[in-house]
């Protein structure tokens, strides 16, 4: 049976993780249909129909679908679910909010945040913030699965030529009202998706000293992270926290400055492709996961780091 992918979009364009989810869906079954629920979302529906792997688009329109409210979206998917073996979305805040509402309505035990499709009913997923990986097999006839976007490559945004069909809207859920959305407008990349992350820990000694982290991040076009210790000490706000109780990040380059490497911090960053640790304590656990460790006083090393970067002709953005 076919797989139903839930598209994430802003009515004009697709959100990027939809492409990663489409790829994951195609690994379960090659007959991937995609549903787009929105208001005046023709543009996004067209973009969806062009995705590699997408064989059919189902567009569902209503004024109350302009903003994403899970209580409105879930009944639409539940109604379509009869024709599908799997319902797929990404495990970002969109899919996390929506999928369990669908799964409960279908009486299905959801499988969250998979990093690998082993078989159409068997998946690999991290547990304990990536400190262990579980291979799980669903016994439900219908499967609701969310995928970890950073574990699946984005599919091509061209090459598909799916038909676009319209389906009926569901009734409006009147007990939840969207009020507003404040998107963080920052020149800096978002922590969860940044190519480079520079993080500071308790070794920074004060919030003021985080300026060093900021300068380094500016230079590398990086997001700024922090350990829980730095957040608890009040050096930086907790939306920067990387770790089991903060954000899990998988950048190409992670630079840990003055971070000892508590278990809960390692859980949030140790899947990064390249890890650099700068710490004056040579025995700090962070060195056990670092590809490049520099045992040095960060207050000397970070300014030197900036100087060395200034000497380079080019820095990747």
């Amino acid at each position: 049976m076919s797989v139903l992918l839930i598209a994430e979009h802003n009515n004009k364009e697709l959100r990027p993780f939809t492409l990663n989810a489409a790829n994951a869906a195609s690994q379960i079954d090659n007959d991937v249909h995609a549903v787009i629920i929105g208001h005046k979302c023709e543009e996004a529906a067209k973009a969806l129909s062009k995705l590699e792997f997408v064989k059919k688009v189902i567009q569902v329109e209503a004024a109350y679908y302009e903003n994403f409210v899970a209580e409105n979206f879930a009944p639409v998917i539940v109604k379509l679910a009869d024709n599908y073996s799997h319902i797929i979305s990404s495990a970002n805040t969109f899919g996390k909010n929506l999928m369990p509402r669908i799964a409960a309505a279908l009486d299905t035990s959801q499988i969250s945040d998979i990093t690998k499709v082993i078989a159409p009913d068997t998946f690999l997923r991290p547990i304990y913030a990536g400190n262990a990986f579980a291979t799980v097999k669903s016994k439900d006839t219908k499967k609701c699965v969310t995928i970890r976007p950073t574990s699946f490559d984005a599919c091509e945004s061209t090459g598909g030529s799916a038909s676009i069909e319209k389906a009926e809207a569901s009734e409006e859920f009147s007990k939840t009202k969207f009020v507003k959305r404040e998107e963080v407008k920052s020149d800096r990349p978002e922590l969860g998706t940044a190519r480079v992350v520079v993080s500071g820990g308790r070794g920074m000694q004060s919030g003021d000293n985080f300026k060093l982290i900021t300068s380094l991040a500016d230079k590398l076009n990086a997001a700024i992270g922090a350990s829980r210790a730095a957040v608890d000490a009040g050096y930086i706000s907790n939306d920067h926290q990387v770790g089991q109780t903060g954000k899990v990040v998988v950048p190409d380059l992670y630079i840990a400055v003055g971070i000892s490497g508590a278990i809960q911090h390692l859980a949030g960053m140790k899947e990064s492709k390249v890890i650099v640790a700068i710490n004056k304590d040579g025995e700090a656990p962070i060195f056990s996961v670092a590809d490049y460790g520099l045992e040095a006083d960060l207050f000397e090393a970070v300014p030197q780091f900036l100087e060395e970067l200034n000497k380079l002709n080019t820095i990747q953005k």
Partner: protein
Amino acid sequence: MKILVAVKRVIDYNVQIRVKEDNSGVVTDNVKMSTNPPDDNAIEEAVKIKETGKATEVVAVSIGEEKAQETVRKALAVGADRGILVKTEGVVEPLSVSKLLQKIVEKEKPDLVFMGKQAIDDDCNQTGQMLSALLNWPQATFASKIEIKDGKLEVTREIDEGLETIEINVPAIVTCDLRLNEPRYASLPNIMKAKKKPIEQLNASDLGVDISPRIEQIKVEEPPKRKAGIKVSSVSELVQKLKNEAKVI
């Protein structure tokens, strides 16, 4: 207004997780257990609302083995009025937990149900949303700010792109983000007082819910080990390695 808060007993976030040798799960024997961190935020918020006079009762509920009583007791020590423990054995999937909670909600008739946005053991992030689907109630997930206005809640939610604000009618489910508040520590006198607060104990079977697992856990493994790295002797060596060897800058 009555607030029901669901709390889960999990391995403490500071414990190094070890996978069992037979790959059947992770080691939990003689391991420090604590309240799931965002559930502490959920309790804190409920108690704060009660302190402002907008709630009359805070009830803490946990679903788990006998020892989950400690988790309920801790919620009582920070200000919940009474507790409920639904005893279960083995793995209880979020779908089953939400069905059990639905039964508790039908019995207790709370106006609000709070819980953490995610448990740090199975990392499923499902229970709150599932419960709200089963009850057909509004859901406010990943809440970092809650304001009560004329019997409605205005909730600020943490989403990937920033913040979102929604208004929901009561009764409703709210799942709490770590940014919602700063959980208090229980004082010694309050810990003593909590020992006298009642905890009602039920068995999952009393609630008439089928909680048999739908997901078979085939194996649990350690994450792939990282290759041992090297120590560099200077910043210039570091920058050269990053540029020419790792090719990441």
